[in-house]
Each structure stands twice: as structure tokens, then as C-alpha cells.
């Protein structure tokens, strides 16, 4: 199992504020890994830097041995990294099938759908995320849980090797969380490398075998969930909110 993503000394500043500070970690192919930290720790910024929506001030990101630092988002997607957003984004006036089929027309998506055709491939992805019966309706009428699934479906459409999930569980009911967890686990079992953020530690604990914790833009600890949960700095960081164990 080789290294799929290598982040080195990543730093991002907004004016005087340092959102991500000298952040480094590695992800192995096939891993399922979480990034935790309290609100404002810089998790989304890390994702934005990896997926190209923001450019780092310094540091490098290597994917599969290629340097992808500062590339435009669609180029990074075409290398094999797909992401979802914390606030759900979808194409409001397109049907779910079209939503996914747009992703299927990216470079990797086209290769993946070469044999079946784009529409067929898109509906197979919709089937995989459990939305196939709603293929012909636009996303505006969907419940929140389905929108999250749609996001994952859109990400899968680009046929990624590494999937970045930004707070996939926020705002979901318990039931919705459960089905989504099943979906994510199934994707992982199928061989996808998954990197997800969360600020509620307990949700991640039972899910991922490895967790990276960050606080105020800085790397704190990297290890199995139990170890991370007992880390002093992590506990202190969460002390104010106490939500980690809520």
C-alpha cells in the first residue's frame, strides 16, 4: 500500500490570521481516515487547499507522486480527488441524473462511463447512493439526507481514487446519519480512499481506524481514535464546547 496523498508544511494565511499553519500528514492508499478539530480549526481550509479552491502560501501537496499544489480545482478532480462541501451544493434546476452526469463528463468520469454510456453510468451511481428512484426530479425538493447522498454521487461521478468528505453528517437526523454511514463504509469496502472531516469526535470514533486532530490551524496528533480522544491538547481544545463527547 503506497502513499496516495502527501501534505507537507502546508500554510495558509488570510491577512494577519493563519488558518493553516505548517500542516503535514500522509494518507495511504485504501485508508479511511478522519480529520477532527473544533469549529474554526481549519479543517475546511485544508480541504480547500487540497482540492484547489484556495492556494497555499507555502507547502506542497503531492497526489500519487504528482505535485498538485495550486492547480485549478477541475484539474485536481481529473487527477482523482473528489470532494463534497459542508454546505450542500447542487445544480438546482437540473435533475438528479443530470447532476451526476455532469460529473460523469469530467475526464476521469468519461473514461469510467465509456463502456456503459454516460446516462447509464450516472444512473448506476445514483443506484449505488440509493437515489435511483428520484433520478428525474430536481434537487430542490429533496430532504437534506438525500442531498448529502447526491453530493457523494456527484463526487463518485468523477471516478475518484480519493474522496474528501467535508462534514458529511452535519445537520442530519439520526436515521439519515445511519444510512449515510452505511453508504460511506460500503464505498470504502469497494476500495475507495476516504478522508473526512468532523467536529463531533464520537461520530468518527466508531467509523474510522485513524484520526488526525488539528486545532487553530496546527497539527496536534495522528493515531487511532482512542489515542486521539485521550490526548491532552485535544481534550483542552474541545473543553470549551464539550460537544466532542456530547
Amino acid at each position, binding site marked *: 500500500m503506497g502513499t496516495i496523498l502527501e501534505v507537507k508544511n502546508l500554510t495558509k494565511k488570510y491577512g494577519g490570521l493563519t488558518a493553516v499553519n505548517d500542516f503535514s500528514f500522509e494518507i495511504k492508499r485504501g485508508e479511511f481516515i478522519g480529520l477532527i478539530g473544533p469549529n474554526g480549526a481549519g479543517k475546511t481550509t485544508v480541504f480547500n487547499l487540497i482540492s484547489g479552491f484556495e492556494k497555499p502560501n507555502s507547502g506542497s501537496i503531492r497526489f500519487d507522486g504528482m505535485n498538485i499544489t495550486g492547480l485549478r480545482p477541475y484539474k485536481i478532480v481529473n487527477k482523482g480527488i473528489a*470532494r463534497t462541501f459542508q454546505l450542500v451544493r447542487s445544480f438546482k434546476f437540473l435533475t438528479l441524473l443530470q447532476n451526476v452526469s455532469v460529473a460523469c463528463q469530467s475526464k476521469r468520469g468519461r473514461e469510467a462511463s465509456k463502456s456503459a454510456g454516460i446516462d447509464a453510468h450516472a444512473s448506476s451511481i445514483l443506484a449505488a447512493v440509493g437515489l435511483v428512484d428520484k433520478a428525474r426530479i430536481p434537487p430542490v425538493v429533496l430532504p437534506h439526507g438525500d442531498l448529502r447522498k447526491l453530493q457523494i454521487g456527484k463526487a463518485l461521478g468523477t471516478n475518484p481514487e480519493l474522496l474528501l468528505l467535508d462534514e458529511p453528517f452535519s445537520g442530519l437526523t439520526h436515521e439519515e446519519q445511519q444510512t449515510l454511514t452505511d453508504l460511506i463504509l460500503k464505498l470504502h469496502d469497494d476500495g475507495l480512499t476516504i478522508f473526512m472531516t468532523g467536529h463531533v469526535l464520537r461520530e468518527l470514533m466508531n467509523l474510522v481506524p485513524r484520526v488526525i486532530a488539528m486545532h487553530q490551524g496546527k497539527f496536534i496528533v495522528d493515531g487511532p481514535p482512542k489515542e486521539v480522544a485521550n490526548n491532552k491538547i485535544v481534550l483542552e481544545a474541545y473543553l470549551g464546547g464539550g460537544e466532542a463527547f456530547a
Partner: protein
Amino acid sequence: MLKNEIEEKVKQFPTYLKSWVKTFLGGLTLFCIISLIALPFLSQNQNFTHVFLRQFTLAMIFSIFAASWDLLTGISGQISFGHAIFFGIAGYICAYLISYQNFPPWIAIFIGAIGAVFFGLIIGIPCLRLRGPYLALGTLAFSLVLLKLFLMGSLSDVLFGSEGISDYRIQISDNPVVEYIIILMFMIVSFITIIQVSKSKFGTILKSIRDDEVSADASGINTTRFKVYAFMLSALFAGIAGACYATYVGAVNPTGNFGATISFYAILMASLGGLTTIRGSALGAFFFIFLEYSLIVAGAEIYVNLIFALILIVVVRFSEHGILKPILERIKDLWDLLLGR
């Protein structure tokens, strides 16, 4: 990919056509097309062929133009307030080629449209950094700059000055019926292409950029490239319309071809008909031209623009999606009633 898609479309065409005609919308469209084709042969009356029919030709030219605007703004979400750029430049190229280089009109129209595509490229690229209202103002500024440059007497040796180019040879045919048929063909081809593009996978990508550009980017779509494509494609049809307009009028001049009025015509017609519907542009254009015509015939020519302003306000205020949808719904209700459904 595109090739396959087109091949597939061509293969499916006969069956597609059959099923399409049976749908309500398909039937109605076919009825309209057949009526338009039959129209010029209904009468030999000169008042009909040389005056009334010419208004139809004008409406068809403007409907291509409005549809091209709808393709850029309604489908791709790139708001353009300066669509006259493409309209005007194609007209000027066409007129120049006919008048100074003795080109036959149809070749000149074609080259004019290509010239507009080229302009779509050079205007599209810098404008890509702009979004929403900024893009709108940027394109408006572009068209005003062109207008002023073309108006300048001191540049008239190069850009023909405020009087533009005029020549009796700038026309498709001196027979209005022939002209009508040719423009009708242009219109049908343009509309089929624009509607098919908007329905195709390519169109889906354009719509996805309109709905959420960030998300389209995250889906691995090179949004920049597709936006430039949208500009070029829209410029192509705006160029066809502009070149046809030049031949319709028989002359080009800065205000008449680059003026802000022309840009606003596109916006008015497309939004009167209904944004993103493409077909609505045709309805809007016909509505616009014929309301103007009937007001003039009724002797209310000085009130024409006032009444348009009122109609625009009322339509935009009370029917956000234009008049096409409500009208189609009424006709469909009526149709169902007639069939006893």
C-alpha cells in the same frame, strides 16, 4: 464524445421525430413551422408580400438574436448586456465584404458569423473573470466602446464613421418571398441547433455552470473552457442574426447595429417570451415586432416605446417566466378540452 452523440442523434432521428410530433409541444411547433412555410404563398398582394411579410422576416432575425442571448444568459448564466457586439460586428463584416470585396451575400453572412465567433472568443476570455452584474456591466462597456469607436468621425477612414456602409447590393434577394424563405431556413436551423445544444450533455454542463459554478468545478469540469464555448456559440447565432439584419436593412451604421437598443432588444424579447425556454425568444420577438407594427398601423407610432415599457414592466412583474409558459398552458388546456380529456 460529441461525434458519437451526434451520430446517435442522427440514427434515432426518424423515431424521435415521430414521437416528438405526437407530443403536444412537438405538434404545435410543427404546425407553426408549416404555417410559416405556407405563409408567403397565401397571397400575391404587394402590401402583404412587401410590407407584412418583411415584418415576419425581421421578427425571425430578431428571434435568432434573442435565442442566442438566451443561450448565453438563460442557459449558461453569463449575463450579457452587450450582445450587440456580436450582432454589429457580423453585420459590419458582412456589409464590408459585399460592398467592398464583392462577395456573394450568403458567403458574407457566413464569414460575418465566423467573425462574430472570433469576437466571442476575444471578448469571452477577459470577461471570464467577471460574474453576474460585473459581467453584465463589462459586456455593456465593451459594446459602448465599440459603438463610440465606430461613431468617431476621426476614425471614419478605418471604421466607416457614423454613416457606416450602405450599398444596394447588401441584400439576400430583392424578392421578399425568397428572402423570407432563406431567413426562415436560417431560423429553423438555428433554433434546432440551439435547442438541441441546450438539451445535450454539453448543454447540461452549461446549465450546471449557471446553477453553481463552484460545484461544476468540483465535478471536474473546466468551467473556463465551457464558458468560452458558450460565448462563441452564442456569438455564432448572434452573428448570423446580425449579418441577416445587415442584409435585411441593406446598410450598417454604428447606432443601428451596435447601439444599446439592439442589446436591449435581445434581452426584452427573450425575457418577454421566457428566460431559458429558447422557444420563448421566438414568441417574444414576434410579439414585439407585430405589436409595434399594429401600433404603427393604428397611428399610435409615438406611443410604441411607451407601451413596450409598460408591457415589459407588467410581464416582468407578474409573470416571472415570461409569456410562453402561461400561453402554452392555456393552449394545452384548451386542446385537452377540445379532445374531451
